[in-house]
Protein backbone atom coordinates (compact mmCIF):
# COMPACT_ATOMS: atom_id res chain seq x y z
CA UNK A 1 0.00 0.00 0.00
CA UNK A 2 2.87 2.35 0.78
CA UNK A 3 4.18 1.47 -2.68
CA UNK A 4 1.07 2.83 -4.40
CA UNK A 5 0.95 5.88 -2.14
CA UNK A 6 4.58 6.81 -2.83
CA UNK A 7 4.50 6.08 -6.54
CA UNK A 8 3.82 9.65 -7.63
CA UNK A 9 6.78 10.96 -5.63
CA UNK A 10 9.49 8.83 -7.24
CA UNK A 11 11.45 10.24 -10.15
CA UNK A 12 12.17 6.85 -11.73
CA UNK A 13 8.47 6.25 -12.27
CA UNK A 14 8.11 9.37 -14.40
CA UNK A 15 11.34 8.61 -16.29
CA UNK A 16 10.16 5.06 -17.00
CA UNK A 17 6.83 6.42 -18.26
CA UNK A 18 8.65 8.85 -20.56
CA UNK A 19 10.92 6.03 -21.81
CA UNK A 20 7.89 3.89 -22.64
CA UNK A 21 6.25 6.81 -24.48
CA UNK A 22 9.47 7.29 -26.46
CA UNK A 23 9.65 3.57 -27.29
CA UNK A 24 6.04 3.53 -28.48
CA UNK A 25 6.78 6.60 -30.61
CA UNK A 26 9.81 4.94 -32.25
CA UNK A 27 7.73 1.80 -32.81
CA UNK A 28 4.99 3.85 -34.49
CA UNK A 29 7.41 5.79 -36.72
CA UNK A 30 8.95 2.55 -37.99
CA UNK A 31 5.63 0.74 -38.33
CA UNK A 32 3.56 3.36 -40.14
CA UNK A 33 3.16 3.35 -43.90
CA UNK A 34 1.52 6.78 -44.25
CA UNK A 35 3.03 10.21 -43.66
CA UNK A 36 0.20 11.24 -41.32
CA UNK A 37 0.72 8.15 -39.15
CA UNK A 38 4.42 8.90 -38.92
CA UNK A 39 3.66 12.47 -37.79
CA UNK A 40 1.28 11.19 -35.09
CA UNK A 41 4.02 8.90 -33.76
CA UNK A 42 6.49 11.79 -33.90
CA UNK A 43 4.22 13.79 -31.59
CA UNK A 44 4.55 10.95 -29.05
CA UNK A 45 8.35 11.28 -29.13
CA UNK A 46 8.08 15.04 -28.48
CA UNK A 47 5.67 14.37 -25.60
CA UNK A 48 8.17 11.97 -24.05
CA UNK A 49 10.87 14.65 -24.18
CA UNK A 50 8.49 17.17 -22.59
CA UNK A 51 7.67 14.73 -19.78
CA UNK A 52 11.39 14.30 -19.06
CA UNK A 53 11.89 18.06 -18.81
CA UNK A 54 8.92 18.37 -16.45
CA UNK A 55 10.25 15.53 -14.29
CA UNK A 56 13.72 17.02 -13.91
CA UNK A 57 12.33 20.47 -13.17
CA UNK A 58 10.10 19.01 -10.46
CA UNK A 59 12.69 16.81 -8.75
CA UNK A 60 16.19 18.16 -9.40
CA UNK A 61 16.18 21.76 -10.60
CA UNK A 62 16.68 24.68 -8.20
CA UNK A 63 14.57 26.84 -10.54
CA UNK A 64 11.54 24.75 -11.60
CA UNK A 65 10.16 27.36 -13.98
CA UNK A 66 13.02 26.70 -16.45
CA UNK A 67 11.89 23.16 -17.29
CA UNK A 68 8.28 24.29 -17.51
CA UNK A 69 9.14 27.08 -19.94
CA UNK A 70 11.14 24.59 -22.03
CA UNK A 71 8.07 22.35 -22.13
CA UNK A 72 5.94 25.28 -23.29
CA UNK A 73 8.48 25.96 -26.07
CA UNK A 74 8.39 22.28 -27.08
CA UNK A 75 4.61 22.64 -27.42
CA UNK A 76 4.97 25.77 -29.55
CA UNK A 77 7.55 24.15 -31.84
CA UNK A 78 5.38 21.03 -32.10
CA UNK A 79 2.40 23.15 -33.15
CA UNK A 80 4.49 24.89 -35.83
CA UNK A 81 5.85 21.52 -36.97
CA UNK A 82 2.34 20.08 -37.20
CA UNK A 83 1.12 23.02 -39.32
CA UNK A 84 4.06 22.84 -41.74
CA UNK A 85 3.93 19.02 -41.88
CA UNK A 86 0.24 18.98 -42.63
CA UNK A 87 0.58 21.48 -45.47
CA UNK A 88 3.49 19.45 -46.95
CA UNK A 89 1.35 16.30 -46.71
CA UNK A 90 -1.51 18.05 -48.50
CA UNK A 91 0.89 19.25 -51.23
CA UNK A 92 2.26 15.70 -51.60
CA UNK A 93 -1.26 14.32 -51.80
CA UNK A 94 -2.12 16.80 -54.54
CA UNK A 95 0.86 15.61 -56.65
CA UNK A 96 0.77 11.86 -56.00
CA UNK A 97 -2.87 11.24 -55.00
CA UNK A 98 -1.47 9.25 -52.08
CA UNK A 99 0.21 9.78 -48.72
CA UNK A 100 1.75 6.30 -48.50
CA UNK A 101 5.50 6.41 -48.14
CA UNK A 102 6.03 3.53 -50.61
CA UNK A 103 4.45 5.43 -53.47
CA UNK A 104 6.15 8.77 -52.87
CA UNK A 105 9.48 7.37 -54.11
CA UNK A 106 10.49 9.26 -57.25
CA UNK A 107 14.01 9.89 -55.93
CA UNK A 108 14.59 6.20 -55.11
CA UNK A 109 17.69 4.87 -56.90
Amino acid at each position, binding site marked *: MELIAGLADRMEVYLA*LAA*MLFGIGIYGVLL*RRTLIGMMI*AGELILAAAALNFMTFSRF*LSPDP*STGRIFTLFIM*GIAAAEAAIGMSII*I*AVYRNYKSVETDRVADLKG
Partner: protein
Amino acid sequence: MPMLTPDGLAGLIFIFLAVVTLAGAFIAATALRLPRAVAGLALGFCGLAGIFYFLNSPFVALMELLIYVGAVCVAIVFAIMLADPGVEKARTARSTAIPAALSLPVGALFAWGLIILARNTMWPAPAAKLNPGDTVDIGHSLLTTYSMVFELISIVLLMAIIGALVLARKGRD
Protein backbone atom coordinates in the same frame (compact mmCIF):
# COMPACT_ATOMS: atom_id res chain seq x y z
CA MET B 1 -9.80 0.79 4.50
CA PRO B 2 -6.11 1.67 4.19
CA MET B 3 -6.71 2.42 0.51
CA LEU B 4 -8.74 5.53 1.26
CA THR B 5 -5.96 7.66 2.69
CA PRO B 6 -5.38 10.76 0.52
CA ASP B 7 -1.96 9.48 -0.55
CA GLY B 8 -3.36 6.08 -1.50
CA LEU B 9 -6.10 7.66 -3.59
CA ALA B 10 -3.58 9.95 -5.26
CA GLY B 11 -1.45 6.90 -6.08
CA LEU B 12 -4.43 5.12 -7.61
CA ILE B 13 -5.29 8.16 -9.74
CA PHE B 14 -1.65 8.37 -10.83
CA ILE B 15 -1.66 4.71 -11.93
CA PHE B 16 -4.92 5.30 -13.82
CA LEU B 17 -3.44 8.34 -15.62
CA ALA B 18 -0.26 6.44 -16.52
CA VAL B 19 -2.32 3.55 -17.95
CA VAL B 20 -4.49 6.01 -19.93
CA THR B 21 -1.39 7.72 -21.32
CA LEU B 22 0.29 4.49 -22.40
CA ALA B 23 -2.92 3.00 -23.83
CA GLY B 24 -3.63 6.16 -25.82
CA ALA B 25 -0.06 6.24 -27.13
CA PHE B 26 -0.28 2.57 -28.15
CA ILE B 27 -3.56 3.17 -30.00
CA ALA B 28 -2.00 6.20 -31.72
CA ALA B 29 0.98 4.13 -32.86
CA THR B 30 -0.81 1.02 -34.05
CA ALA B 31 -4.46 1.70 -35.04
CA LEU B 32 -5.12 0.77 -38.65
CA ARG B 33 -7.60 3.61 -39.22
CA LEU B 34 -6.01 7.03 -38.82
CA PRO B 35 -9.03 8.76 -37.20
CA ARG B 36 -8.78 6.15 -34.43
CA ALA B 37 -5.07 6.89 -34.12
CA VAL B 38 -5.83 10.60 -33.66
CA ALA B 39 -8.45 9.76 -31.02
CA GLY B 40 -5.85 7.64 -29.24
CA LEU B 41 -3.40 10.53 -29.44
CA ALA B 42 -5.94 12.88 -27.85
CA LEU B 43 -6.62 10.32 -25.09
CA GLY B 44 -2.92 9.90 -24.41
CA PHE B 45 -2.39 13.66 -24.21
CA CYS B 46 -5.29 13.98 -21.74
CA GLY B 47 -3.56 11.38 -19.54
CA LEU B 48 -0.25 13.21 -19.95
CA ALA B 49 -1.90 16.46 -18.84
CA GLY B 50 -2.94 14.67 -15.65
CA ILE B 51 0.64 13.48 -15.15
CA PHE B 52 1.79 17.10 -15.51
CA TYR B 53 -0.70 18.01 -12.79
CA PHE B 54 1.04 15.48 -10.54
CA LEU B 55 4.33 17.22 -11.37
CA ASN B 56 3.07 20.37 -9.59
CA SER B 57 2.28 22.32 -12.73
CA PRO B 58 -1.42 22.86 -13.45
CA PHE B 59 -0.51 25.64 -15.90
CA VAL B 60 1.48 23.33 -18.19
CA ALA B 61 -1.27 20.71 -17.85
CA LEU B 62 -3.82 23.26 -19.10
CA MET B 63 -1.52 24.24 -21.97
CA GLU B 64 -1.08 20.57 -22.87
CA LEU B 65 -4.85 20.19 -23.17
CA LEU B 66 -5.24 23.49 -25.03
CA ILE B 67 -2.41 23.11 -27.56
CA TYR B 68 -2.13 19.36 -28.13
CA VAL B 69 -5.69 18.14 -27.71
CA GLY B 70 -7.29 21.35 -28.90
CA ALA B 71 -5.01 22.43 -31.75
CA VAL B 72 -2.57 19.74 -32.93
CA CYS B 73 -5.09 16.87 -32.94
CA VAL B 74 -7.66 19.02 -34.74
CA ALA B 75 -5.03 19.99 -37.35
CA ILE B 76 -4.23 16.30 -37.91
CA VAL B 77 -7.94 15.55 -38.29
CA PHE B 78 -8.15 18.26 -40.97
CA ALA B 79 -5.18 16.73 -42.81
CA ILE B 80 -6.80 13.30 -42.69
CA MET B 81 -10.03 14.72 -44.13
CA LEU B 82 -8.18 16.53 -46.93
CA ALA B 83 -5.78 13.71 -47.84
CA ASP B 84 -8.11 10.73 -47.23
CA PRO B 85 -5.54 7.99 -46.58
CA GLY B 86 -8.14 5.25 -45.97
CA VAL B 87 -7.23 2.03 -44.17
CA GLU B 88 -3.58 1.03 -44.02
CA LYS B 89 -2.97 -2.13 -45.99
CA ALA B 90 -1.53 -5.29 -44.48
CA ARG B 91 1.99 -4.52 -43.42
CA THR B 92 3.65 -7.70 -44.63
CA ALA B 93 4.33 -6.51 -48.17
CA ARG B 94 6.30 -3.47 -47.14
CA SER B 95 9.15 -2.83 -49.55
CA THR B 96 11.19 -0.32 -47.58
CA ALA B 97 14.53 -0.99 -45.94
CA ILE B 98 13.21 -1.70 -42.43
CA PRO B 99 10.68 -4.55 -42.26
CA ALA B 100 7.67 -3.85 -40.08
CA ALA B 101 8.49 -6.88 -37.91
CA LEU B 102 11.64 -5.13 -36.71
CA SER B 103 9.82 -2.03 -35.45
CA LEU B 104 8.50 -3.57 -32.20
CA PRO B 105 11.92 -4.93 -31.08
CA VAL B 106 13.58 -1.61 -31.91
CA GLY B 107 11.00 0.41 -29.96
CA ALA B 108 11.14 -2.02 -27.01
CA LEU B 109 14.94 -1.85 -27.04
CA PHE B 110 14.91 1.94 -26.82
CA ALA B 111 12.38 1.93 -23.97
CA TRP B 112 14.22 -0.83 -22.07
CA GLY B 113 17.58 0.86 -22.43
CA LEU B 114 16.24 4.21 -21.23
CA ILE B 115 14.51 2.64 -18.23
CA ILE B 116 17.71 0.80 -17.23
CA LEU B 117 19.63 4.05 -17.65
CA ALA B 118 17.16 6.00 -15.49
CA ARG B 119 17.33 3.34 -12.74
CA ASN B 120 21.10 3.00 -12.65
CA THR B 121 22.10 6.65 -12.86
CA MET B 122 23.08 8.34 -9.61
CA TRP B 123 21.02 11.51 -9.82
CA PRO B 124 22.46 14.47 -7.89
CA ALA B 125 20.64 15.36 -4.72
CA PRO B 126 17.85 17.90 -5.26
CA ALA B 127 19.10 21.42 -4.85
CA ALA B 128 17.35 23.94 -2.66
CA LYS B 129 14.50 25.52 -4.58
CA LEU B 130 14.87 29.20 -5.46
CA ASN B 131 11.16 29.58 -6.18
CA PRO B 132 8.10 27.32 -6.33
CA GLY B 133 7.93 27.59 -10.12
CA ASP B 134 4.24 28.43 -10.28
CA THR B 135 2.50 30.50 -12.96
CA VAL B 136 3.74 33.81 -11.54
CA ASP B 137 7.37 32.63 -11.70
CA ILE B 138 6.90 31.29 -15.22
CA GLY B 139 5.51 34.68 -16.28
CA HIS B 140 8.40 36.56 -14.65
CA SER B 141 11.00 34.29 -16.30
CA LEU B 142 9.32 34.54 -19.71
CA LEU B 143 9.42 38.33 -19.66
CA THR B 144 12.89 38.75 -18.14
CA THR B 145 15.38 35.88 -18.59
CA TYR B 146 13.76 34.27 -21.60
CA SER B 147 12.25 37.32 -23.31
CA MET B 148 14.52 36.90 -26.37
CA VAL B 149 13.48 33.26 -26.83
CA PHE B 150 9.89 34.30 -26.30
CA GLU B 151 10.12 36.79 -29.17
CA LEU B 152 11.97 34.31 -31.39
CA ILE B 153 9.33 31.62 -30.99
CA SER B 154 6.61 34.05 -32.01
CA ILE B 155 8.60 34.76 -35.20
CA VAL B 156 8.93 30.99 -35.77
CA LEU B 157 5.18 30.58 -35.38
CA LEU B 158 4.47 33.47 -37.74
CA MET B 159 6.79 31.98 -40.37
CA ALA B 160 5.17 28.57 -39.88
CA ILE B 161 1.72 30.07 -40.51
CA ILE B 162 2.84 31.91 -43.65
CA GLY B 163 4.84 28.90 -44.88
CA ALA B 164 1.90 26.55 -44.37
CA LEU B 165 -0.34 28.92 -46.33
CA VAL B 166 2.17 29.16 -49.21
CA LEU B 167 2.77 25.39 -49.32
CA ALA B 168 -0.88 24.43 -49.23
CA ARG B 169 -1.86 27.11 -51.73
CA LYS B 170 0.67 26.15 -54.43
CA GLY B 171 -0.79 24.29 -57.42
CA ARG B 172 -4.26 25.60 -56.85
CA ASP B 173 -5.62 28.27 -59.17
